[in-house]
């Protein structure tokens, strides 16, 4: 990448949008002048430590807190019984069906614990060390109950129950049938006439978001008002939900997300610890801080993914796809948190992906287990869907003896078919899959690598080479409020912005979308600089404080630029419209005769006349000479509610070396071309793609949250949960095509999740392509050397011994993946 000068060197109105502006945010982040929540110190502040359950499922007996209560510098100890009246239940905002079972989620367990790591008591002390020391002094009687860990077993007749008071371990069943919805035809008919059916059981292992900044919350009481600082992605949602949960009225509660160190969905939550910190501060009338350790974070902050996917695909002999059936088991964990049940539903519409399926059926069961609750993790439902379809397309290609790319090409939506309504009823906005694919093939050096693959195969090289594709799309810009309503989600999907024109000509932009690494302050400044014609440096972006930015729906689902940025642009345009009236008055001209260029209004055909929008800001402040009947303000607000989602797409290609003697896999080259619509800042877009790739590749190769047979998380530290380091990841070759989104004034489609959604199947497809000639048809993720070696040398999917005695999928308790029959299809295929 070439370095770009901070200021455009060309004369005239160089556009900010499209420039690789270096980030404003960096100034404080590279110098340590940061405002992480844990940095906060307030007079008289008390510290919390949480006593957590070491057992996965038990009735709570006596909790003896006397020793802890009398320990040095301990101020108070609370159990769930002490807080039961006030704590309510952690809210679930997405009851996906009317019948959905929600067992209720106390912040501190009252009668029963349902996963390891659940809070059972809270210590309040004058120092963090005193609080942590006292955790050891709490004596809890646990009366063990059967532990439910495996989803397939959990749904079997007579299975033990995750919660004492539920009738079964199924939370809900949610079905979308394109035939019934009128968006496609019957899958039964499609499968009946198919020449080929391929069925697979794929496993989306459980992952942990593992944001780098551990969660932290500080609450300061001020009379009957409370200010909460929290490491959250969602200060606005948090405020509303805390008000509804704890009874602290919404107008008495201010929530601030200061600098937040990553989220990836993991901080899209209303956490037990936020509720606890608020309630303790309220009880004691003192400022209170809670900061988690990494080990606490890994076992108690929500997890992601964790699905078993039964996928059936039907095609004719020529490779035209005829139908797709998906049956999901989605692990909820022990409780439903903010959007736990909705995550698989976000994926429901994306399994057909970029392919023209005439028939589609999706059937999902949400299943309770005695594990940490799951919820949003980068992509939330869409990576799971993309993995399933991109893996089964490869399996179908093998069955048909077709090139995997030719099969995709034969079935994907062509560039001239946009807008295209899919079998799932979504209207894809724009794109060109062929163009992105061609560019990615060139970036990879495809022909040479295929040739090398052939040579290695012929010479029986111990290191084999494979090439894997993922031609993905995703659904971004969450979300049209009406669509969310139709899916029973508990809020809208709009976003809000305000522009404040300050007397000195500086501009404050207030956004409801709160960042935690995405670079909003820079990108929003670029948008506003172009709209208002004011210098980039004269713009300050304010966010993440419900008192400063009162309206917002926060940051997730690649929505910030697409929805929040659109609101910023619309508000800017309202400012210009208001300023035009003032300019006409000051210039003694008709508004119709004014032109607005580079921040200055002038009368057409009258060179030299002109007044800048920054001068108008001062004139508005003074209001001495203002048009009659016009209020003296040019500030403006806008709320943008998208009409449709946006659909980024791209082609990701991975070339993978597999050492057949050791099972070690090494990414030889990774090339991807993403179409994320209009690019506001190419530096930030590239960075988002890189980061997404790292997380998607990590799912394929490194990460898995593993529970042992008693329900203990055995990957509860960074020693065991393998977040990749620089040495574990390859160089990425990235590129873009640009097809603007028609649904928002920027034309952007969203980029935050693309790399993470696209990359996982490309990596696994590549590994399989390297060893398929050795009889390997699937390898469970993550592709550890042991699993790969076993798949090559012992058959199956490599999951037998590696995870025996644990509840990692592929462990002794579950069937192997290859060749499993499913109840969903009755036709031949490759079984």
């Amino acid at each position, binding site marked *: 990448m070439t370095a770009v000068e901070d200021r455009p060197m060309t004369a005239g109105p160089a556009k900010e949008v499209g420039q690789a502006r270096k980030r404003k945010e960096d100034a404080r982040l590279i110098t340590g002048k940061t405002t992480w929540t844990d940095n906060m110190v307030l007079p008289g502040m008390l510290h919390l430590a949480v006593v957590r359950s070491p057992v996965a499922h038990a009735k709570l007996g006596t909790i003896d807190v006397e020793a802890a209560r009398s320990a040095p510098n301990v101020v108070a100890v609370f159990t769930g019984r002490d807080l039961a009246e006030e704590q309510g239940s952690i809210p679930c905002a997405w009851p996906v069906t009317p019948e959905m079972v929600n067992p209720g989620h106390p912040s501190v367990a009252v009668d029963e614990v349902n996963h390891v790591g659940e809070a059972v008591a809270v210590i309040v002390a004058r120092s963090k060390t005193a609080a942590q020391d006292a955790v050891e002094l709490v004596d809890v009687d646990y009366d063990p109950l059967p532990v439910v860990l495996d989803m397939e077993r959990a749904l079997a007749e007579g299975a033990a129950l995750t919660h004492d008071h539920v009738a079964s371990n199924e939370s809900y069943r949610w079905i979308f049938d394109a035939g019934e919805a009128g968006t496609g035809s019957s899958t039964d008919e499609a499968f009946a006439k198919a020449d080929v059916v391929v069925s697979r059981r794929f496993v989306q292992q459980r992952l942990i978001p593992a944001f780098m900044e551990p969660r932290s919350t500080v609450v300061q009481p001020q009379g009957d008002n409370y200010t909460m600082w929290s490491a959250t992605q969602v200060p606005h949602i948090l405020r509303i939900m805390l008000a509804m949960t704890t009874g602290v009225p919404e107008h008495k509660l201010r929530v601030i997300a200061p600098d937040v160190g990553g989220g990836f969905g993991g901080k899209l939550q209303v956490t037990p610890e936020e509720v606890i910190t608020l309630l303790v501060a309220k009880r004691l009338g003192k400022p209170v801080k809670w900061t988690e350790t990494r080990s606490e974070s890994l076992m108690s902050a929500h997890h992601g993914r964790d699905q078993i996917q039964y996928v059936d695909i039907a095609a004719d002999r020529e490779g035209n796809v005829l139908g797709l059936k998906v049956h999901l088991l989605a692990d909820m964990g022990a409780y439903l948190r903010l959007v736990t049940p909705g995550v698989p539903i976000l994926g429901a519409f994306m399994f057909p992906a970029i392919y023209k399926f005439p028939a589609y059926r999706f059937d999902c069961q949400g299943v309770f287990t005695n594990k940490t609750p799951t919820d949003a993790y980068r992509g939330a439902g869409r990576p799971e869907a993309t993995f399933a379809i991109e893996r089964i397309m490869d399996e179908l290609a093998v069955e048909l003896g077709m090139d995997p790319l030719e099969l995709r090409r034969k079935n994907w939506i062509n560039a001239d078919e946009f807008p295209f309504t899919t079998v799932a009823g979504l209207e894809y906005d724009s794109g060109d899959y062929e163009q992105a694919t061609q560019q990615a093939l060139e970036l990879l050096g495809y022909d040479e690598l295929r040739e090398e693959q052939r040579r290695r195969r012929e010479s029986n090289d111990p290191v084999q080479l494979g090439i894997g594709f993922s031609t993905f799309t995703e659904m971004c810009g969450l979300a049209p409020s009406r669509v969310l309503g139709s899916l029973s989600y508990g809020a809208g999907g709009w976003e809000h912005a305000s522009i404040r024109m300050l007397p000195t000509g500086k501009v404050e932009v207030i956004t409801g979308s709160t960042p935690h690494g995405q670079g909003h302050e820079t990108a929003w400044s670029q948008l506003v600089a172009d709209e208002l014609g004011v210098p980039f440096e004269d713009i300050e972006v304010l966010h993440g404080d419900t008192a400063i930015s009162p309206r917002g729906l926060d940051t997730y689902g690649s929505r910030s630029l697409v929805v929040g940025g659109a609101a910023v642009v619309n508000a800017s345009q309202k400012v210009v419209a208001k300023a035009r009236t003032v300019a006409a008055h000051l210039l003694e001209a008709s508004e119709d005769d004014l032109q607005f260029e580079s921040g200055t209004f002038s009368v057409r055909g009258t060179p030299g006349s002109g007044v800048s929008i920054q001068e108008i800001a001062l004139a508005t402040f003074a209001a001495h000479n203002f048009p009659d009947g016009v209020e003296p303000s040019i500030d403006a607000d806008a709320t943008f509610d998208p009409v449709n989602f946006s659909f980024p797409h791209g082609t990701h290609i991975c070339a993978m070396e597999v050492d057949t003697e050791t099972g070690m896999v090494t990414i030889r080259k990774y090339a991807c071309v993403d179409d994320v619509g209009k690019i506001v800042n190419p530096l930030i877009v590239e960075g988002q793609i890189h980061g997404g790739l790292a997380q998607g590749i990590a799912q394929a190769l490194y990460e898995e949250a593993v529970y042992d047979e008693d329900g203990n998380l055995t990957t509860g530290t960074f020693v065991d949960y393998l977040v990749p380091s*620089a040495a574990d990841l390859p160089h990425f070759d990235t590129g873009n095509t640009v097809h603007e989104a028609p649904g928002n004034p920027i034309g952007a489609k969203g980029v935050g999740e693309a790399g993470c959604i696209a990359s996982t199947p490309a990596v696994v497809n590549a590994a399989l392509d390297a060893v398929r000639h050795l009889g390997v048809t699937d390898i469970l993720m993550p592709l550890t050397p042991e699993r790969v070696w076993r798949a090559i040398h012992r058959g199956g999917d490599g999951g037998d011994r590696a995870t025996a005695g644990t509840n990692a999928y592929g462990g002794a308790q579950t069937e192997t993946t290859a060749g499993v029959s499913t109840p969903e299809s009755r036709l031949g295929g490759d079984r």
Partner: protein
Amino acid sequence: MTQISVRVDGASYTDEVEPRTLLVHYLREQLGKVGTVVGCDTSNCGACTVHLDGEAVKSCTVLAVQAAGSEVTTIEGIAQNGSLHPMQKAFHELHGLQCGYCTPGMIMASIDLVGDNPDPSEHEVREGIEGNLCRCTGYQNIVRAVQQAAAEMRGAQA
């Protein structure tokens, strides 16, 4: 309690500390040097990396009493006379950070790496910073930044 004297970012401090106090907690809680952060509890993530007598250490793996009589440099002490250290500048210019939580440790580790190896290859940078985890960037821009800063630091020495 044990009394220690330590120089941190050019200033001298004398304090009473509990013997079990980690250097990172001393820096953050007693000195208010909150630019240095804690990311894990197993010395894996490197977010807390500082320089102890010129060598990069994970300050969660050093007791405060072990730093007695030493010179500690944190992310807050590497800019000179108001101008950024070449490593800070390179991280900014090449977008080597997103949320910025790992950044202080990553920058301090990278400065030490370049001290040991003034002209590291991409592979050497990747191996050299593997004790520092970043969840946002995928590392590619960090690697570029370290190499750019190394070039600038070589130039400054010549």
